[in-house]
């Protein structure tokens, strides 16, 4: 089933976006009101701050069969909660190595800074992430019977 999915040309990767509500979520809303078209690969979970994102969420996402995870928050220095995005960034770099160790291509986990006024950037980030993860194909690590 998954194999077939991948072979078809319009295979769309499944991506989860964890977006902070102050910057990136508002940026994604702006992309909407500006009618910027991007692939429907991403589903967004709104969090107050990127620092709320536990490593567990990312691992859980991959275990559930998600093909890519995108974390997006305020630009460095403009976190609504003083420095939450820095905490998230540190966690992210460690986590990227951890998933690599687990056998997941680290490019499946991405992070971006998108502010509330960057609708264009958001659309672009999703397009690029989708393309990159599409190239990697489906995440099969947690599928029974496959190694």
């Amino acid at each position: 089933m998954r194999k077939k999915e991948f072979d078809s040309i319009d295979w769309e990767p499944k991506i989860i976006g964890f977006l902070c509500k102050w910057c990136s979520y508002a940026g994604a809303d702006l992309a909407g009101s500006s009618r910027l078209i991007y692939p429907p690969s991403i589903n967004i979970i709104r969090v107050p701050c990127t620092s709320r994102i536990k490593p567990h969420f990312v691992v859980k996402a991959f275990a559930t069969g998600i093909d890519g995870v995108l974390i997006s928050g305020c630009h460095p220095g403009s976190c609504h909660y003083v420095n939450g995005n820095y905490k998230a960034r540190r966690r992210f770099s460690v986590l990227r190595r951890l998933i690599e160790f687990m056998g997941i291509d680290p490019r499946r986990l991405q992070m971006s800074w998108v502010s509330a006024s960057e609708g264009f950037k958001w659309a672009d980030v999703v397009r690029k992430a989708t393309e990159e993860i599409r190239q990697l194909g489906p995440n099969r690590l947690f599928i029974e019977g496959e190694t």
Partner: protein
Amino acid sequence: MNIARTVDVDKVVKAAKSYRGVVHALKYKYLCSKPGQNLIKKWIEEEKIDRIVVAACSPTLHEVTFRGVVEASGINFYACEIANIREQCSWVHEDMEKATKKAIKIVNTAIEKVRLDEALTPISVPVTKRALVIGGGISGIQAALDVANSGYEVVLVEKKSSIGGHMAQLSETFPTLDCSQCILTPRMVEISQHPRVKIRTCSEVTKASGYIGNFKIEVRARPRYINEEVCDGCGECADVCPVEIPNEWEMNLTTKKAISIPFPQAVPLTYEIDMDHCIECYKCVEVCGKRRAINFSQKESYITEEVGAIILATGYDPYSLEKGQEYGYGKNMDVIDGLTFERILSASGPTHGEVRRPSDGKIPKEIVFIQCVRSRNQEKGVPYCSKICCMYTAKHALLYKQKVPNGQAYVFYIDIRAGGKGYEEFVQRTMEEYGAIYLRGRVSKVFKEGDKMIVWGEDTLTSRKVEIAADLVVLATAIVPSQGVRELADSLRLNIDEYGFLSEAHAKLRPVESLTAGYYLAGCAQAPRDIAETVAQASGAASKVIALFSGDFLYKEPTTVTIEEGLCMGCGVCVEICPYDALALNPEKGTVDVIEVLCEGCGACVSSCICRAIQMKNLTDRQIFEMIEVIGRN
């Protein structure tokens, strides 16, 4: 409706109906309308529904509307979640089938979340009814006066030694030609005498902590080496001071002493010593004598102010042109910017209002104005329109002709933007009554020949090359956010746009509020604008503050964190991580306590806790796990 273009709403409804726990699902065109709201009420009351999901536009728009409806129907305010299937689905996707599939997932994640949401009560906190205004230009003055006149205390912080801002430098104002200082200084006097306004000049805001209603602001005051309470502004000290330095306030057209005030109506009328240039001859101390206003041992100091709301009125700076890079500006003394020309036109300026050019004091007989210098210029400047230049250039040309009747003004422009009451008529007057020649096109080069400036340009309406031998060239330079705003925005955790202007909460409907609660915007801090608009916006910001202060309590989001004592081992990692000091070790119990009024709900502590003892209300790990599973499912 605008959702249905790319999302098959009937399919979404069908899918929702069959989802676990869902009793009712229905399509409705305008759920935010009164009948739509009544429908929700009816269901809740008749079918004993205890939580709902609204699949519609972004939660930033109608979350509060629907939560209000839910609350009015007798269930908890937080028992309602919004599935954003418009801004983040139908408006950004084209493929109907895929968009519909995604919309179903969005609805399902919202269902999973709302299923586990608990009933919460907003946290009430007292409001400190005192406002801080940052910036003492016309916008800051207006905002501070409005708040103070409503009965509340105001602290006005200004980094320069006097309030007044750029408006104090202007000659006349368009379109009525009122003398700028004459209409500004009464406001300055009013604010300086106001019993509820504390003006702190030579001061800057360095740090802010707290939240709406309860901010603690650190203000750094640099030493001016003069005691503000004692100095009466007599000016004897400046008379004896032997050091002459360029006068920035006069756009370097003249000099000032190392001990100076920027202009005679300065508020406060207190001198300041420029320590970079002072030679410490102490002649000023001598002449001040027994009054002892001069104090060379003054040090930098820090003051903490407690306020409930903050108005940002940080204003603008003219674009600083690099030397010699634009039409010979900086190399050629007779190529000046608009603000410098204001000082030349001003009756209080270095030429007492006579139009004389800086190089040799000659009255210019031909003068060229160039519009959009670095504005609307993607490559070399800023892409936006600076908004005020069309009007002030028309004013410049008109005033010049009034003062030099046999002179000729030329204006090179791209378009004339004169949107405003009486503005278009004013530009027409400049052209027709005062004979200013408007040439549509850019200037390619300005170079010196003898004592003339040769201007090469193009008149695109007649497609001919134009050469003008001018005596003076005035550049209408772009305006940019004032220096230091980026650092200020960083320390106050405010959003700025790509040019450094402060971002408003909503471009159309919340233009005077920042996205961060408790901060309000006035004047050019947000975008280029003229005096009339600045004053209107300042009053708008002030009215928001007054509304905030009209109640004794504020209600804070209760989506804070809780600690399960049985799981907490008291390691204190979360205490270190919390940016708000909202967590504290309880030595008796050996666990951590949450101080709820301080918690802002960022969740950084939740993800730092290795014992999983901390959870966030209505965004628990379990809720996020459930949402992830929904998205992962096929």
